[in-house]
């Protein structure tokens, strides 16, 4: 798959911006958030049917005849994206990590395992120490904030939350939708379990997005009202220093800008 090349650092109006997300990744994010918004708006009025806001919201989304159809369409798209994302990820891992090993003749279980674990999105030992550093900083035991790599533990959590959530929620929703066909093979009491999984995991996902993810990208003072990296794919130097200092230093050094590296600031 030919990927467009992105400059690590690009300059606009005398300011540096650091590459974070490719167009391909940003488009996947657009699909995720649009479908999740539609799913929430058409799903939660049913979960909280006895609340005053439930009926007007459901009617806004088309009422009891239309809203479930929208819910099924959005859910199918999101589940499709999950499958696509997983296949794409396996493809990347194979072509970028496994194939080079194969060419060199180093293809062993051990080497593939190491290649797997050293990917930037896989939780690492550094994440654990970053977490400890962060608590030290937040509890005033040091005035040195943690220095995150390209992906901080928070971002990894943010990524794996839906990556665990979609396979819990999605198939559950799918089987509740096709319950009659499904019941040819599996007892109805499974639907009871799927029902709890579907709505309770949905609540967790929605609350997490609303409070935690949106704090990170909307409510935090330096982001308010909206961080733009999800649109442009590039992060400002200030935010880069604030959020990914280790990566910042690495990229600046790689680009031969080591003399212009700015000090870390909280």
């Amino acid at each position, binding site marked *: 798959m030919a990927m467009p090349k992105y400059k690590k650092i690009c300059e606009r109006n005398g300011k540096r911006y650091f590459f974070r997300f490719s167009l391909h990744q940003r488009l996947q994010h657009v699909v995720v958030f649009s479908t999740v918004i539609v799913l929430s708006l058409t799903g939660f009025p049913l979960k909280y*049917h006895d609340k005053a806001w439930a009926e007007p919201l459901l009617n806004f989304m088309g009422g009891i005849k239309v809203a479930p159809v929208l819910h099924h369409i959005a859910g199918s798209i999101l589940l499709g994206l999950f499958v696509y994302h997983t296949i794409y990820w396996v493809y990347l891992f194979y072509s970028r990590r496994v194939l080079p090993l194969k060419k060199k003749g180093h293809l062993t279980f051990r080497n593939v395992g190491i290649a797997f674990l050293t990917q930037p999105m896989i939780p690492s030992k550094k994440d654990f120490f970053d977490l400890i550093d962060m608590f030290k900083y937040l509890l005033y035991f040091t*005035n040195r904030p943690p220095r995150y790599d390209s992906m901080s533990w928070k971002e990894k959590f943010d990524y794996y939350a839906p990556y665990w959530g979609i396979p819990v929620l999605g198939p559950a929703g799918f089987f509740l939708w096709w*319950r009659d066909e499904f019941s*040819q093979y599996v007892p109805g*009491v499974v639907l009871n379990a799927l029902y*709890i*999984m579907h709505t*309770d995991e949905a609540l967790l996902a929605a609350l997490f997005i609303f409070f*935690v993810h949106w704090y990170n990208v909307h409510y935090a003072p330096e982001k308010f009202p909206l961080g733009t990296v999800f649109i442009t794919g590039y992060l400002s130097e200030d935010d880069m220093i604030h959020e990914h200092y280790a990566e910042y230093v690495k990229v600046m050094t790689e680009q031969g800008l080591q003399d212009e590296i700015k000090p870390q600031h909280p």
Partner: protein
Amino acid sequence: MGKSFFKTHVVTLLAALLLCSITGAANAEDELDCLLCHKYRGLSRIDENGKFRLFYINEALFKEGPHSRVKCADCHQDIKKIPHDPAKKVDCTSECHLIEPSGQKNFSHQSVANLLAKSVHGKLNADGSPKKDEQDYPGCKDCHEEPLYRPLSFFKGRTNGVSERGLARCQTCHRTGDFAESFYKHVTSRLRKMRDPKEIVGICAKCHGDKAFQQRHKLDDVVTSYKETFHYKALRFGSQETPDCTDCHVVKGEGVHFIESKNSPTSATNIKNIPTTCRTSECHEKAGANLASFQVHVTYDKHKYPMQYYMLVFFTWLTAGVLYFFLALIFLELLRRLFPNFSFVKSKDGDHPSSE
């Protein structure tokens, strides 16, 4: 001047004629002229038990209702003269003067009462002895609140959607009186649900939603658990397609008054019959018999529904754990911004942010 005088009188005359004709029509079934008094909206008294009783009859509602062709005295059989003494409670099984066309006998609700008596809601045991807490078992009027009994709730009055064209076909032959119209209404009103399904749920909930009632009869809170299902949620938002209580608790083809306990072998909710009940032609037609093990009335009781209980506990802790952790983090982070450089421990390794 003369012209306007004439005009005023003609209008008054017409109005008077109109009034007469309305009263005349309304009195068709009112041979004792009951409405002479009962047409007054304030007609009421406080009874021996201190309860406020309203005796107003809303004519418009009465004429739209199912009993519009029944004479007052057919139901209130103890009233022979006016003014009358306090009337007895109406017995719905008494015969009225309507002739039931198929059998040419006087009509009575006795067959419905028989069905109810046989059902789980009957007041007597099979051996004829009264059931425990007999007063909790419903009679006709506990569920059937005809608008007539609540004369002020005029907004409840719904017409049966009479199609003038359809009715005209009947009237080609059935010319006399209002037979065609009332027969037409009688049939068409039974072709669809008589009441909004939400109303049915509300009627059952009058007893089954009552905590003390549940304890007296050792019943689960089936109303709350039903309201957790998609069956109710769709009804709640105006769908007519998902089942209310009577759709699952009555065997298809059986009278709606014959609701049986799930322990009865012929009950719609007996474990052996649930697959049939779920898979009736209007519902889960394509489903496997397996669907029957879906639990509709889940109470999250630890012993009765352990799977649901522990799943609920798991998700509650997961949600609370994740959210409290991150909310605490956000709180600390915001607090940290107020004192960005403060630290209890002075850095020794020259690792101060501003030293780089």
